[in-house]
């Protein structure tokens, strides 16, 4: 069980570092969506199902959509 959580934390931190290093802004937004999704799984492991639902629906779906619409109206490369 502890190895599953350690693997998920490593993937989450790798996604956050990837969001820092990508030059194309669309790729950075998708990396931050991955961070939000894995945080939602970790909320479930911490026995908080309400917060997991809120983070999955708001953080992983709506925030990514708002970012992509804003990138479409401004520039795409850094």
């Amino acid at each position, binding site marked *: 069980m502890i190895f599953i959580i350690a693997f998920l934390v490593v993937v989450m931190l790798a996604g956050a570092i990837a969001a820092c290093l990508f030059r194309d802004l669309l790729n950075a937004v998708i990396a931050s969506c991955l961070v939000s999704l894995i945080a939602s799984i970790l909320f479930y492991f911490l026995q908080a199902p*309400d917060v997991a639902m809120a983070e999955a629906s708001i953080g992983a779906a709506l925030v990514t959509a708002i970012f992509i619409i804003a990138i479409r109206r401004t520039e795409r490369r850094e």
Partner: protein
Amino acid sequence: MRNLIGIVLILIVASGVFLCLDNIPFGASRENVGDFYNSSGVKQTGAVNMVTSVVLNYRGFDTLGEVTILFIASLGLGAVLSTVKTSSREETTPSSLILSTGCRFLFPFILLFGTYTFLHGHLTPGGGFQGGAIIASGFLLRYLGCPAKRTNPSLFVALESTGGLVFTLIGLLGLTLSGFFLFNFLPKGEANTLFSAGIIPVIYIAIGFKVGAELAGIIDGLIVKS
């Protein structure tokens, strides 16, 4: 050079943080107000979900403040974006028949699932904010799949204002009937049934409509009309 200075500063702060982590043991039991909420929550509020009873009964005034913050953000976004000139240089490709039919077919089921989520907020994990976000995702799917059909934005404005007004009026009704703002004055009923927990389901229905209409209105304001 700038990257190097950033890494060095963050390493200094991180080492300071990780040296003091022994003072917050992970998973140790703490005696605080959470034990009181867990042990006497069902008797005092009638709701089975403890997080819902904390959000709407013990700390209901903070939820009113949060709903106000969402309203102010939506207002500010509308005010700033009305001064932006919308250039019609972007043309969207019309979506194919399969895509638009699929999105139109899925839309009422997503609305149904969102309504189920905020209606059963006091019995299962869920509630007004999660259900409202699911409803807004349904509207987002409809915008992306069939861009030709746009909903009237005044519908969102009407639903949002009605939701906020119902929340405040229930609070004022509690003030006139019992002397406390947001007092739980409806009968508590039997635990684990749908019509229980006093005013908690009524307020969650109002919050579900309000948050759903608000987030859908934010997305509608950001998409350029082509």
